């Protein structure tokens, strides 16, 4: 190992250690977990009062360029931050499928790819299709990937969980192979000059140029906030409850009247749509799409983001996505080991801390906070561990 590698390694270990410590602090069940308790005791209004400045800081990160977070010269910090946000969005989508509904989807990159190709096909001059404005490709990509999700999910979601993993893995590979084999998708040559949102800078250049990471980052953060809100709405409804029930005990859920297949398909389709959305954002920023970036290791990275952050915890997976994307940019000397690092991390996490950095934490009732207060005078017990350490209720009896 060179000295650069050692320095990076040490820094990375420090970073991960800090994250783990923060995660522990958030855990309510631990005696030291005052932070989580403090947060939970706040009313919604007070929480927002804290959140708004926090969001403002997050949005401005590329402009502030904080010292420890910044990347070394040669790596563009705003673009790094865009990638982090992109991975966070991907993790948020995959979390619906893996964390909430408990379906292991290993072909998520397939949806990401479909989204990217939708953006490329409808905006790149290399495509013979009639062009539409770039921003329209975002919803279009969601619709198309949702369609793919339904087509893939309909035959496979009736299968046992582990078969689903393999079939989705196959789907990811098929998408990649088709991108290679189908002439209209241009294989390795790909599509140049994928579109971007309108807007010009003061000097007349495009605001959303692919060298200019900041607006892309802010756009992505905006999208993440909307998605968070919508996914949160779903979580605190019969849909989210159905997902968790399916994850906990599929048979019991069905016998309690949950249309299991229907809600699995919804989880799959919603996850797919978010994957497609991220894909078209990626295509826009990079401005180039070919068949090279949608391989299985990327799918596994996505999964690692969810598991690392805390499967089933929306904030956790955002953090997980951020970290997974950040490490190779920040610790460039380690970049060639990134897959090795994440592979080892997956095994180690599963053995020692399956709940990830932050454990699962789900509120499943709309206005449940008030309801619990009104009914029993205290808030509910929140999950401090994750979907991944869940045991059947019968076992603990």
């Amino acid at each position, binding site marked *: 190992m060179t000295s650069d590698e050692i320095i990076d390694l040490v820094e990375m270990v420090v970073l991960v250690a800090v994250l783990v410590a923060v995660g522990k602090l958030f855990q309510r069940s631990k005696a030291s977990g005052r932070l989580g*308790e403090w947060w939970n*005791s706040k*009313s919604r209004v007070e929480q927002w009062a804290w959140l708004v400045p926090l969001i403002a800081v997050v949005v401005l990160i590329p402009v502030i360029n904080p010292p420890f977070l910044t990347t070394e010269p040669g790596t563009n910090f705003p673009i790094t931050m865009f990638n982090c946000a992109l991975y966070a969005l991907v993790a948020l989508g995959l979390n619906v499928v893996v964390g909430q509904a408990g379906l292991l989807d290993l072909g998520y990159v397939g949806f990401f790819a479909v989204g990217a190709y939708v953006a490329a096909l409808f905006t790149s001059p290399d495509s013979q299709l009639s062009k539409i404005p770039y921003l329209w490709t975002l919803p279009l990509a969601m619709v198309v990937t949702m369609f793919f999700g339904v087509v893939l999910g309909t035959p496979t979601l009736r299968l046992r969980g582990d078969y689903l993993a393999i079939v989705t893995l196959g789907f990811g590979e098929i998408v990649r192979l088709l991108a290679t084999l189908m002439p209209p998708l241009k294989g390795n040559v790909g599509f140049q000059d994928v579109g971007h949102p309108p807007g010009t800078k003061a000097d007349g250049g495009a605001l959303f140029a692919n060298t200019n990471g900041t607006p892309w980052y802010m756009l992505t953060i905006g999208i993440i906030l909307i998605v968070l809100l*919508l996914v949160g*709405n*779903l979580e605190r*409804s*019969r*849909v*989210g*409850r*159905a997902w*968790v*029930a399916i994850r*906990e*005990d599929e*048979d*019991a*859920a*069905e*016998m*309690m*009247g*949950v*249309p*299991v297949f229907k809600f699995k398909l*919804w989880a799959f389709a*919603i996850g797919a749509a978010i994957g497609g959305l991220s894909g078209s954002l990626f295509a826009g920023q990079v401005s180039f799409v070919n068949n090279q970036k949608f391989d299985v290791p990327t799918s596994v990275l996505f999964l690692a983001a969810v598991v690392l952050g805390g499967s089933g915890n929306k904030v956790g997976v955002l953090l997980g996505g951020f970290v997974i994307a950040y490490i190779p940019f920040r610790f460039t000397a380690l970049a060639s080991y990134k897959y090795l690092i994440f592979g080892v991390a997956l095994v180690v996490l599963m053995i020692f801390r399956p709940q990830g950095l932050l454990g*699962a934490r789900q509120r*499943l*009732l*709309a*206005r*449940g906070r*008030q*309801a*619990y*207060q*009104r*009914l*029993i*005078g*205290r*808030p*509910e*017990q929140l*999950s401090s561990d994750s*979907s991944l350490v*869940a*045991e*059947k*209720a*019968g076992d*603990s*009896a």
Partner: protein
Amino acid sequence: MSDTPEVEPEGGIVAELEHMTEAERAAHEAEVAEAVAPDREIAVEVGDTLLELRDVTMRFGGLVAMDSVSFSIKRGEILGLIGPNGAGKTTCFNAMTGVYRPTSGQVLLEDRPLGRAKRHQITHRGIARTFQNIRLFGEMTALENVVVGADARHQTSVVGALLRLPRHHREEREAIDRAMALLEFMGIADRAADKAKNLPYGYQRRLEIARALATEPKLLCLDEPAAGFNPAEKDELMGLIRKIRDDGYTVLLIEHDMRLVMGVTDRIVVLEFGKKIAEGLPAEIRDNPAVIAAYLGVPDEEDTDGAA
């Protein structure tokens, strides 16, 4: 931790119950009873056949778990289903709730065959059950578990939930109120906010019943609800089952404990080796020589049913 303005003072409703006057408590209990037993349209009158098994046979490979079993459950009664271990009681349950499809024969609810209905559709049609080996959603709170049951009657679509349309709000509110009423009814409201897996055993058993009742069933099937209970708890459960029936539910009860079965049921069906060997009032069953023979020398152990 709780000086948020919009909520009632400390303790909430549960704590308040203790300080209520007689009249207040009666009024509250009436409210709870109202929520526990909502109006359901049931096609048959009280005393008529609600569910019928017609020559149901269940074969697993070479094993015949149920051999041409026929009996019926009348609306408003508590029917006991008993038999030695491996007699096919749980199989019978599974055939009624769609876990298995009968090899031959039919199950009819309100004179309409269940046919090829899926499990969740059967729940919709009005059969709910509990499980012999408790199967709660361990990571959910008790209240959430019951709300999942109540969701069976909800119409909110994914889009409705996504955009928080008015129906979503109404259904959520109703579901929480009803779930809480059910928890109170079962006497476990004080732990509504705890995760199911952290509840004591007795609470878990009762939570299962609350969750099943939340689906607004016409027929409630209890699979050994008293397993692992001490005599005092069993007495309490007997009272609860009667109360459930008095609230307008029909109950099918599988149970090993003879005292409980004899004490609470209106009629009893006895299975042995997958065949029905007797049917009648508890007193008749007690004196039935075939039943005595079936049980003679077969100690009544807490054991799993062979077909489970």
